[in-house]
């Protein structure tokens, strides 16, 4: 088994203007997702949603502090899940399942040191 981080990149503007119904659907989709992960031979180890990039502060070179995300992009990192999966096929099945209606996800293997 190996760990993969599923990074969720979405258009924040869409969330800023979303109706309460849409936000409710998104919440429900994430709950459904969590319930389905194990059907793909994987296990959910953790995950979080992040506050918007408007709340981000970047620190470069250990001292230079700037207001905003490290890189400005239309689709910004908005949350992540940490999953355990036997291989990339299984991790990608989970990635396809992961809700990201205003963008997509990136699946990255977690580095191990042994």
């Amino acid at each position, binding site marked *: 088994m*190996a760990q993969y981080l599923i990074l969720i990149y979405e258009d924040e503007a869409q969330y800023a203007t979303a109706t309460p119904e849409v936000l409710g659907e998104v919440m429900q989709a994430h709950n459904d997702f969590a319930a389905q992960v194990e059907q793909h031979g994987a296990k959910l180890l953790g995950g979080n949603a992040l506050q918007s990039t408007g709340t981000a502060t970047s620190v470069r070179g250990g001292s230079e502090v700037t207001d905003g995300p490290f890189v400005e992009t239309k689709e910004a990192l908005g949350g992540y899940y940490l999953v355990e999966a*036997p*291989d*990339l*096929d299984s*991790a*990608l099945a989970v990635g396809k399942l992961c809700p990201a209606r205003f963008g997509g996800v990136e699946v990255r*293997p977690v580095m191990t040191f042994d």
Partner: protein
Amino acid sequence: MTDASAVAAAVADAHRREWAFVLAATVRVTRDIDVAEECVQDAFATALTDWRRTGIPARPGAWLTTTARRRALNVLRHRGVEHRYLPLLVEEDTVPGPADLADDRPGGAEIPDDRLRLIVTCCHPPLDRSAQVALTLRLMCGLSTAEVARAFLVSEPTMAARITRAKKKIAVARIPYRVPSADELPARVDAVLAVIHLLFTTGHTTPAGEELVRRDLVERSIELGRMLRRLLPRDPAVAGLLALLLLTDARRETRTGPDGRLLLLEEQDRSRWDGRAIAEGAALVRESLRARPPSPYALQAAIAAVHAESPTWDDTDWHEIVALYGVLTQVWPSPVVALNRAVAVGFACGAAAGLAALDALAAEPQLAGYGYLPAARADFLRRLGRVEEARDAYAEALLLTENAVEREFLASRLRTLGTGPP
């Protein structure tokens, strides 16, 4: 002592035929592609000297596999885990250990054929298409990095970096080394077919350069198609792709004249088409069309078969071809397919109808910058006697075409139309 040149020929032949089999079986032992490649190369080098002494074995593939796998076990025993650069490949089956290899004499227990495992791994969709193609040539065909680089007109360091990155991703991201389950298999085979088809088309019409056919890529792609057909004999999409390659390549000798000039289907000497390849391809077409819906490869092969089996250009059943393109646009809605259909309409129903069909595609963004569209328009305009418009269209096509042979064809058409007003 066996004659050195006979041994060299036998080793070269085995390299061509058995490379993928030997490597796939050795990867099962090493679970590390680089180590397996080294061991397989060593086995071929050993064959060059050993076969002079012992004679050429009855089953060179089995001999090479056994030698490569023994070598692999030795390497693994002497190379500690701490020196490992990449993690081991993931596979769910038990890996053969020394006990399994004890009976691994040539002529002993059958060595499982792992080539399907290897090719679906090379063509795994999370790998970029250019990486899939490079890995396939390198691991399935045994081409060197330099040869792969030459085939795709990139520098050797660029290709080496591409192959290294792909191998690293397979190991680190844990792309599994296994035959996909029955429900995943069709999508995975599709990716393999796309790679083989790309190899063929790259060889068949090089995007740029002097030579119209890069023979080796064409032959390699057909060999891969045949291999896949043996591995998956009941897959109609595989049959369709192999049929398409065979039927297209059957016309190889007649595609250019003695002076290197491009010859159109209309001008080609059909008596020089490869009748055996056509018969084999046509039989595969019939089989591949049984799938519902038929694969895009099967339909393209069916179109190629109509041409191949027509005794003369004038006998071509253009209505059948238009109908096949109609089905093809449904299973594969692509502006390029629509363009080919429009050309067929021009032959079935006259140049004016063809031109109207082409002009309906003029606004298609995917066809902007595609040289075949103005080239096809130019031909219909020429047939309709609209010389000035034909000239403009040929000139536009020339601007968009890089292949030297195709450029010469367009330029010669332009010359026959003259330069002055009609």
